[in-house]
C-alpha cells in the first residue's frame, strides 16, 4: 500500500508542502500561527476556486482555458456596478456572478465545439474580447467604493480572536467558498456520469463520440463551469479587496494553470484530480508566504514557482519515459 501511495502525485505534493512548510516554520515559527495560516488560505481562495475550473477544462480539452481571468474581471466590475445600482444581498450577487460567468464561459465551449479550434486559441481570443470590451465600456475607471455587503462577507470571521496589538483575526468565509467549489468539482468529476464523460473525452474523443457521448453538452458544461467558478471567484476577490481595479485579476491565469499542472493534471488531457489542484495551489501559497516570512524579495516568488514547475513536469515526463522504456525491455538471457 505505501508503494501504491507513492505513485500518486498528491502524496508527493503533501510531502513537498510539509517539507517546505517545516523549513519555513524552523526559520520563522510565525508561519504556523493560526493567524498566518488563516490569512494565507483567504488570500489564495480566488486562485483556488479558479483552479478547480481550470482543472475541469484541462481534463476535457488537453489545452488550458486562459480567458477565465478576463471573465472574472468583467464579472467583478459588473457585479460591483450592479450592486451599487440595485442593492441586493451577497447570495444574489454570487448567483448573478456565477450565471454571468457561466454564460461567458459557455461561449468558449460553443466556439471550441463548432469550429474545432484548440481551447487555448479560442480563449486567447475571447480573453481579448472580454477584457477589451471591459475597457471600452468602463474606460478603465476604478471603483473605489463598493456595496457594503462585500465588506461584510469578506470580513466575517469564524473562530475570531484578538491579536496582541488589538486586531481581529480568524477563519474567513472565503476559504470555505473554495472548499465548496473543490467539493463540487470533486463530486462532479468523480461521482457523476458527466464527470466521467469529461475524462473519457479527454482521453479519447473519437471513442467517446462512438459511444454516443454528447460532446457539445459536455463542452458547454465544462466551459460554463469554469466561467461559473470565475464569477464566484470574482465575488470572493471583491469581498477581500473591496474595490475594483479593472486589470488586477488578469495576469493571474498562468499561475493558476501552473498550480493545476503541478497538481498532476496532464497537459495532454484526461488526467488530473481536484485534490491535486488544491494541493498545487496550497504549495504556491506556502512558497509565497514563506518568502515573505523569510524576508526574501517577492520577486523570487516567480523564480521559485518556475523552478518547482520545471522539476514537477520534468519528473512526470521522466516517469513516463521510464515506463515506456520498461515496456520495450527485452529480458536478455545470461
Amino acid at each position, binding site marked *: 500500500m505505501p508503494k501504491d501511495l507513492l505513485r500518486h502525485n498528491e502524496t508527493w505534493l503533501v510531502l513537498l508542502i510539509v517539507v517546505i512548510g517545516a523549513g519555513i516554520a524552523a526559520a520563522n515559527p510565525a508561519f504556523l500561527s493560526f493567524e498566518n495560516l488563516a490569512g494565507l488560505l483567504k488570500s489564495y481562495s480566488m486562485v483556488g476556486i479558479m483552479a478547480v475550473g481550470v482543472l475541469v477544462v484541462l481534463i476535457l480539452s488537453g489545452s488550458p482555458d486562459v480567458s477565465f481571468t478576463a471573465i472574472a474581471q468583467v464579472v467583478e466590475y459588473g457585479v460591483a456596478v450592479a450592486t451599487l445600482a440595485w442593492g441586493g444581498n451577497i447570495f444574489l450577487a454570487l448567483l448573478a456572478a456565477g450565471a454571468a460567468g457561466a454564460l461567458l464561459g459557455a461561449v468558449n465551449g460553443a466556439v471550441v465545439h463548432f469550429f474545432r479550434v484548440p481551447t487555448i486559441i479560442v480563449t486567447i481570443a475571447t480573453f481579448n474580447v472580454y477584457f477589451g470590451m471591459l475597457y471600452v465600456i468602463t474606460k478603465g475607471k476604478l471603483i473605489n467604493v463598493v456595496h457594503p455587503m462585500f465588506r461584510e462577507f469578506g470580513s466575517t470571521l469564524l473562530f475570531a480572536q484578538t491579536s496582541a496589538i488589538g486586531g481581529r483575526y480568524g477563519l474567513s468565509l472565503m476559504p470555505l467558498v473554495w472548499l465548496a467549489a473543490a467539493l463540487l468539482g470533486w463530486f462532479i468529476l*468523480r*461521482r*457523476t*456520469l*458527466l*464527470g*466521467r464523460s469529461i*475524462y*473519457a473525452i*479527454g*482521453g*479519447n474523443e*473519437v*471513442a*467517446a463520440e*462512438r*459511444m*454516443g*457521448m454528447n460532446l457539445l453538452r459536455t463542452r458547454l458544461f465544462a466551459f460554463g463551469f469554469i466561467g461559473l467558478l470565475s464569477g464566484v471567484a470574482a465575488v470572493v476577490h471583491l469581498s477581500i479587496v473591496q474595490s475594483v481595479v479593472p486589470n488586477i485579476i488578469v495576469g493571474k491565469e498562468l499561475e493558476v494553470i501552473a498550480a493545476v499542472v503541478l497538481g498532476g493534471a*496532464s497537459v495532454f*488531457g*484526461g*488526467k488530473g484530480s481536484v485534490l491535486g489542484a488544491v494541493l498545487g495551489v496550497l504549495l504556491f501559497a506556502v512558497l509565497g508566504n514563506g518568502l515573505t516570512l523569510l524576508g526574501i524579495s517577492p520577486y523570487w516568488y516567480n523564480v521559485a514557482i518556475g523552478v518547482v514547475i520545471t522539476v514537477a513536469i520534468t519528473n512526470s515526463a521522466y516517469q513516463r519515459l521510464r*515506463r515506456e522504456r520498461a*515496456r*520495450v*525491455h*527485452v*529480458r*536478455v*538471457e545470461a
Partner: protein
Amino acid sequence: MNEFLRLEKIHKSFAGVHALKGVDFDLRQGEVHCLVGENGSGKSTIIKIISGVLQPDTGRILVEGRPVEHLGSAGTMARGIQVIYQDLSLFPNLTVAENIALPEIRERGGRIVDWGRVKTVARAAMERIRVELDLDAEVGELPIGVQQLVAICRALTSDLKLLILDEPTASLNDRDIANLLAVVRDLQAHGIAVLFVSHKLNEVFAVAERITIFRDGEKVATLPPAELDEDRLVSLMTGRTLEKRRFTFADGAARTALEVRGLSLRNSFEDVSFALRAGEIVGLTGLRGSGRTELALALFGIRPAERGEILVDGRPARIRSVQDAVGAGIAYVPENRLVQGLVMKHSVAANATAAILDRLLGPLGLVDPARRAEAAAHWIKTLGVKVSDPAVAVQTLSGGNQQKVVIGKWLATEPRILILDSPTVGVDVGAKSTIHDHVRGLAARGMAVLLITDEVSEAVANANRILIMRAGRIRGELGTAGVEADQVQRLVEARA
C-alpha cells in the same frame, strides 16, 4: 443454425466510386465468419453498413428475419451488434473496470456513478470469457493484447449477438493471437456470432466456419474453409494466381556487405554476431520482445549498441547516429510505418523524397521543386504506388501503398544494406506479394537485405537464410532451402 443477419443487393457509392455493387451477405447465429479481401475490396464498407455507421444507397437489411429501415449506430447496438475497431476505441486514461463498464453504466446507471457497480459489471464481463485482468490498472499502461481483451469485455456488457472484429490481430504477438482466437471460440460457444476481418490467412483458416471473399466491391464467394486452401483463397481475393517461388541465393563469392560482431545493448540484445552478403536476403525472426527490433534500431544508429563491432564492406563503421548509418549505406524501413516512417499529412512526393533532400538542392541551396517532383515521380513509378497525384497526403493511401512510399523513401538514398522491419504487416496479400517482388529485385541488384518478420512463412519464402532471435540473443541460423515454415516456427517458440 438460424440466420441472424441478411443483406440483400446492397449498393453503396462514394463520390462516384462504386464501393459495393449489389452485395448479398448472410450471417448465422453463433457462427465465426471471416471476411477477406484486398484493401479497397469493399469489406470495410460492408462492416460500416452492418454497424450502422453508413447507410446503403439501395438494398435491404434484415436482422433476425425482420427488415430494418435504418441501422443507426445506436440502433445497431440495441440489436446486439458491436464493432471493435482496429484502434480499439478505449480510454487510455481510465481504468480497466471503467473502460469495460462505462457503456453499461451509461445505459442503465443514471447520472451518479456507483463505483461498486462499475466493478461488478466489469467482473461479470471478464468471467464470461474467463479472463482475469487487474481492474484498477490504467488501460494505457497495458500491452495491446490485454487492451484487446478489455475491448471485448466491454462489448460483452451488452446483450451481444454479433461482434465484429476489424483486423484484431494486426498488432498482436503470437501468444496474444492464440488467446484472442480462444476467446472468439468461447464467444461462439455462448451463441455470439463473430465477424472477423483479417489479412492473416492462417488465422482465418484456424477460426472460421465460413469465409466470405470480397473483390472490387463484389462478393466473390462464401465458402467453408474445408473447400478452400490458401492458394485458392488468394486467387479468389486477387483475381490472379500469385506466383509462389522461393528466393534462392547462390553467389557464394559475393562480398560481405555487413558484418556484426559481438554487438550488445543492455536490456535489448547481447553478443549478436552475423554477416550479410551483397545480394542476400536474410530473415531475422523471433517473437515480439525478442530484441529483433532493438537490433535493427542499433544498426541504424537510433539506439546505438554499447559494445561490439559493425563492419560495412569489411571496414569498421562507427554507427552512433542515423546520419552515420545513412553515410555507411544503411537504410531502415521501420516496423510502424505510420508512426516512424511517414509524415501522414504531408504529400506522397514530400515523403518519398524526405531522406534525399540534400541531393535535390537548386543553385541557392534550397530544395528545387522540379528536381523533387522528378525524383518523386521516379519512385512512384518504380514501386508502382497507386496514387493519382503525388501532391496528395500520404494518409489517403491504402496501407500497402503507404508501405511502398516508405520503402521508396529509403531506396532513394541508394543504400547498400536495407533493413526491413515487418514490411508487410497490415498489408493485403496482393500488395504483400508486390513488396516481396521488389525486395527480391533489390537483392538481385546487389543490395544486402535484412528482413525482420513475425511471419516465419514470409522469411522462409523470401530469404535464403534465417536468423532466429530469442531473449536478446541469436539462437540459431539455418538456410531456407528445403525447410518448411513450421520447422522454423518450432525453433522460434522453443524455450531455451
